[in-house]
């Protein structure tokens, strides 16, 4: 039953993955990437893992691709990357890729993965949650701490960057308006960041 779906989705996913790599317009590449990630989400749905699928969409399409497009938009609208591909490079790339695929395939074929049996009952969300909080709790806590640390680190980096940016922005002719700005009582930089950081620290607790 799921075979036609599977094949269609596979074709779309792989095709858009190739487009994402090869397309010269970065924005179309990003859109193709979004389609690839959506295709992977559909694979999860086909595997009865809707929970993972929804997270795949929320995190990758809703956040990662948005970030990529945002960057493309801010940096440049034309493609400023130049393809520098000789024939030798291309051949070598193909050979290496094929070698990796062959190795991995052989490894998988030799491993016990082929003999795995899918369990008959699909685990419910509740079961996943319970496992997460009992058996896998050390991993869960470690993961949470890593994420929290990275968020705090990002905030610290952002704050440092903002400060530097302001110093740099104050060029020769611009001292005047900087002064105006401070006199007009605009709240910028530090205060906002400080409050943000507080809230995130609250999250950590």
């Amino acid at each position, binding site marked *: 039953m799921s075979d036609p779906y599977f094949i269609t989705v596979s074709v779309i996913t792989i095709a858009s993955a190739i487009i994402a790599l090869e397309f010269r317009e970065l924005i179309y590449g990003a859109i193709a990437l979004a389609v690839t990630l959506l295709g992977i989400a559909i694979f999860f749905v086909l595997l009865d893992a809707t929970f993972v699928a929804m997270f795949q969409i929320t995190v990758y399409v809703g956040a990662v691709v948005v970030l990529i497009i945002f960057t493309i938009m801010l940096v440049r609208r034309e493609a400023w990357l130049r393809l520098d591909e000789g024939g030798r490079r291309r051949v070598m790339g193909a050979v290496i890729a094929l070698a990796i695929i062959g190795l991995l395939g052989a490894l998988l074929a030799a491993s016990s993965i082929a003999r795995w049996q899918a369990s008959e009952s699909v685990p419910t969300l509740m079961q996943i949650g319970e496992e997460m909080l009992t058996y896998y709790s050390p991993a869960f806590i470690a993961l949470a701490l890593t994420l929290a640390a990275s968020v705090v680190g990002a905030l610290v980096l952002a704050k440092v960057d903002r400060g530097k940016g302001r110093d740099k922005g104050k060029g020769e002719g611009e001292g005047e308006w900087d002064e105006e700005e401070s006199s*007009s009582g605009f709240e910028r930089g530090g205060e906002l960041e400080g409050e943000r950081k507080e809230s995130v620290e609250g999250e950590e607790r």
Partner: protein
Amino acid sequence: MGLEIDRERIPGFDVEGKDADGMDKGILTLSVGPQHPGSGHFRLIVKVDGDIIVEALPDPGYVHRGEEKMCEYRNYIQNIPHLERPMIADSCGILYPYVLAVEEICNIPVPERAKYIRVIMAELNRCIFELYWLGIYGIFLGHSTMFMWPMADRELLIDLAEMASGARVTHAYFVPGGVRNDVPDAFPEKAKRHLLYFRNRLKEYKDIFYDNPLFQARTVGVGILRREDAINLGATGPVLRASGVEHDIRKVEPYDVYDELDFKVITMNEGDSFARAYVPWLEMYESVEIALQALERMPSGPVRTKLGPNPKGAVGEVFKRVEAARGELAYYLVSDGNPKPYRVKLSVPSFREIPVMAHLLKGAKLADMPSIYWSMNYWPVEADR
């Protein structure tokens, strides 16, 4: 690496980092107006760095029609209707100093009753303008109810003006030697009723608009105009008084009967957008007060001095100023003894707010642009003349 960054095509990486205007990259030049919902017949060239305005260049002139040149071709009386065209929302205010100047240069006496009627009409027009202004301020900040309410209440005052002068906005009511015609007998009664109703409505504006924390978040502390800057930049009217300068032509140089009436000059010391929006609201109370007092004390008698067919001015010059709704409005009138003025110069408050606007917008945020721009009492048509 398969992909290499083509350095020549990335503007951020070039040596100078400047574009044709000599500005740093990343600075976006926006042309706010004349076809922009937040501009009017006026253009503001705004250069933004991120969200901060680094330079704002006001560019008026889209509705310039040479009022000053036109005045030189017409005689003193013919000038009346076209001179009020630049400011139809406050047409008495813009005509008032002209009439005073012509009276002084042609030496025309004014009957007492006409002076009172003029004061009443000037105050009505002040409220009419402030309501219009307040409505636009509301819609500039996205408050659609604040747009509709003053527009509706304005009708009551326009009805009064229509009753007195026969015209709703362009009254051409003030003439040298008095006013064009007497007010109808029912006018004082109706005016009192409408003004009292209007004064009650003002409280509701405060409830929904000035007391709204979101409105305060947008205006308090935004675009602070310091006292010395306000004076040196030639700010006038509510903008000047919101910066703590107690300067009102009705007090410092009373014309007609303002010296006989009892009213306060409203000042605030903050100098921010909120103060500039709040001062007109307080002034509307004073306007109602003045109008009620004038209605009370208005004597009977003639309202116009009969003039000859074509009054001639004495050789010389005269500079007359009044406090219009937007501030000090002055006429500089030079006469060479002919029935036509030799030179008429309008010094209008809107034109005087342009440097203030440029000063305040520099360093402000783009989101603060509407609240600063419209708190200037700027009226593009008046500024262009």
